[in-house]
């Protein structure tokens, strides 16, 4: 068992780190302050192929692997979690299900422009009344001739208004089982921005990842071509769950990056900050905290990379993804909270990045499956 990265992955990491330091970090504070989507950065990432890292070249991607993609989200999130989630949602939640379940025509039509970064992707499952309990969703799709007609709304959608292509999960039938219980059957659809009847609701004002475009999507007799059904009719729920397994690896990488970024700041700051005649890094309280954080972060990194490798080599990787996301998200929250404490009063001031990192960390415990859901997935496998 060798835990070291090979040379090409090391080189990819150095590329992502250099890009993040030069192009992303200088804008992070402004993106948070103005809540503006970092479109210029996305255009730069598009040029460099960051929007299709694990996608084969014949579909417009870079022909790399999940681990490389994970390291990209990690390095971006070290300096700006907003930028990290833009890449994560686009790659894991929109491109991946089309690559996995799409027809050749759908891959040609949608994956090529998405992977090359010409178009941006999003994924819409959550509804006002259906978060963790995704079965509670109400959005419906009915086949009318050669078109599906969608009605309903989706909320908290990442890349909401800036995306061009959306994966939308909707009910296509309701069946009754032997005991008379009704069951909703979901299907997945590919919806283009500009489809008739598709509009945007309110923009969410968030605690963290404030530059990411989080919107409500509204479907009012929204008509899309029949061929935009993704996968088999009625199989939308497993498609959504499998997509989220992959998404969780992306969010785990984002969380890992946030924690690493916060620790980097803490190391630099505690060496400079003097109290009682010496740097606070010379005090054992600080040293022990830094040590605990470093150990925890490395454990999170190993789980995240293991999940990335599982996605590359296994058909099912739900448990690996759940463990990685649970541990990395809780690490991000714990580390950023501790780092703010080490910074003292300055940690609470917006001029320093660490309060932003603490706000950004919180969402990683919530979206794409809360920490509670991850525990359900992990324990479910243990008790099966």
């Amino acid at each position, binding site marked *: 068992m060798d835990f070291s990265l090979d040379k*090409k992955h090391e*080189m990819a990491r150095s*590329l992502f780190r250099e890009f993040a330091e030069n192009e992303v970090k200088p804008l992070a504070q402004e993106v948070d302050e103005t809540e503006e989507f970092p479109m210029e950065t996305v255009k730069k990432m598009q040029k460099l192929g960051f929007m299709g890292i694990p996608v084969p070249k014949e579909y417009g991607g870079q022909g790399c692997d999940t681990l490389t993609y994970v390291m990209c989200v990690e390095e971006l999130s070290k300096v700006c979690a907003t930028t990290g989630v833009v890449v994560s949602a686009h790659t894991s939640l929109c491109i991946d299900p089309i690559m996995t379940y799409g027809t050749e025509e759908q891959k040609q039509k949608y994956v090529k422009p998405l992977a090359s970064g010409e178009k941006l992707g999003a994924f819409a499952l959550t509804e006002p009344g259906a978060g963790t309990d995704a079965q509670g969703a109400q959005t419906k799709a009915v086949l009318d001739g050669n078109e599906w007609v969608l009605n309903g709304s989706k909320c908290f959608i990442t890349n909401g208004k800036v995306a061009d292509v959306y994966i939308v999960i909707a009910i296509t039938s309701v069946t009754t089982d032997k005991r008379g219980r009704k069951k909703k059957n979901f299907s997945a659809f590919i919806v283009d921005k500009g489809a008739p009847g598709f509009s945007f609701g309110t923009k969410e004002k968030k605690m963290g990842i404030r530059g990411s475009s989080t919107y409500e999507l509204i479907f009012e007799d929204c008509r899309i071509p029949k061929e935009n059904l993704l996968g088999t009719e009625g199989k939308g729920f497993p498609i959504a769950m499998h997509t989220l397994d992959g998404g969780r690896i992306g969010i785990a990488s984002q969380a890992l990056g946030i924690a690493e970024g916060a620790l980097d700041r803490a190391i630099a700051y505690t060496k400079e900050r003097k109290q009682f005649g010496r740097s606070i890094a010379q005090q054992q309280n600080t040293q022990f905290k830094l040590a605990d954080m470093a150990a925890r972060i490395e454990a999170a990194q190993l789980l995240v990379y293991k999940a990335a490798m599982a996605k590359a080599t296994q058909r099912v990787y739900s448990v690996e993804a759940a463990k990685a996301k649970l541990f990395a998200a809780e690490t991000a929250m714990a580390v950023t909270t501790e780092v703010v404490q080490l910074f003292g009063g300055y940690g609470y001031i917006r001029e320093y990045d660490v309060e932003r990192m603490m706000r950004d960390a919180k969402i990683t415990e919530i979206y794409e499956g809360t920490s509670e859901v991850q525990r359900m997935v992990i324990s479910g496998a243990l008790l099966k």
Partner: protein
Amino acid sequence: MKIVVCIKQVPDTKGGVKFNPDGTLDRAAMLTIMNPDDKAGLEAALRLKEQYGAEVTVLTMGLPKADEVLREAMAMGADRGILVTDRVLGGADTWATSTTIAGAIRNLEYDLIITGRQAIDGDTAQVGPQIAEHLKLPVISYAQDIKVEGDSVIVQRQYEDRYHELKAKMPCLITALSELNEPRYMTPGGIFDSYDKEVTVWGRADLKDVDDSDLGLKGSPTKIAKASDKVRKGAGEKVVLDTDESVAYLIGKFKEKHII
């Protein structure tokens, strides 16, 4: 057009310079980067490739691990990489290095050779022009702009307060300044491709028309007495005075330190 770009893997001085007990650089302990002037030279070659169509070959002389810098260049867009490495080439000064590189380039077809002005570890700025001497080529150093016109290049050669515009018929050699351009990033796919490609490895036997007496430590007329890191100076003294007072102040200081 065929372009050969000579690049060097150098210690990343941002991470601090480390020395062996004998005073030489501890290269193994330091992170490495592509020498900045060389990277600008590579970027210039890649832009010429995009503009006029060209095959870009990158060449380096170094330890076997220097293949990393060639892969980085290929991940940016270079077509092939050649590593010149051999124990007998170790310890080379600028003379032995330029002799070696010229011996390697004699195996290649080229219209243009681009090198960096100088490497940040040695700072001699000698290797590029020496390669041109060995190959009997015209050289234009300190390039801040490069254009191709027919079978010639038009280069702006930088001076402190001006530039000269020089035209030279190809084949020729240009030494590039890091101010020449903003080098591109690698791409993730380019990195993966670069590791799928073979790097050509040449040793002493592959060098054309060179004498053993001009190679490696034995062939190096330069003897290094001692190497040291930059001595960090204090913040100095800052005074704000009008012109006359400034002159008087400086004269006073110079006299005090016996400079005048």
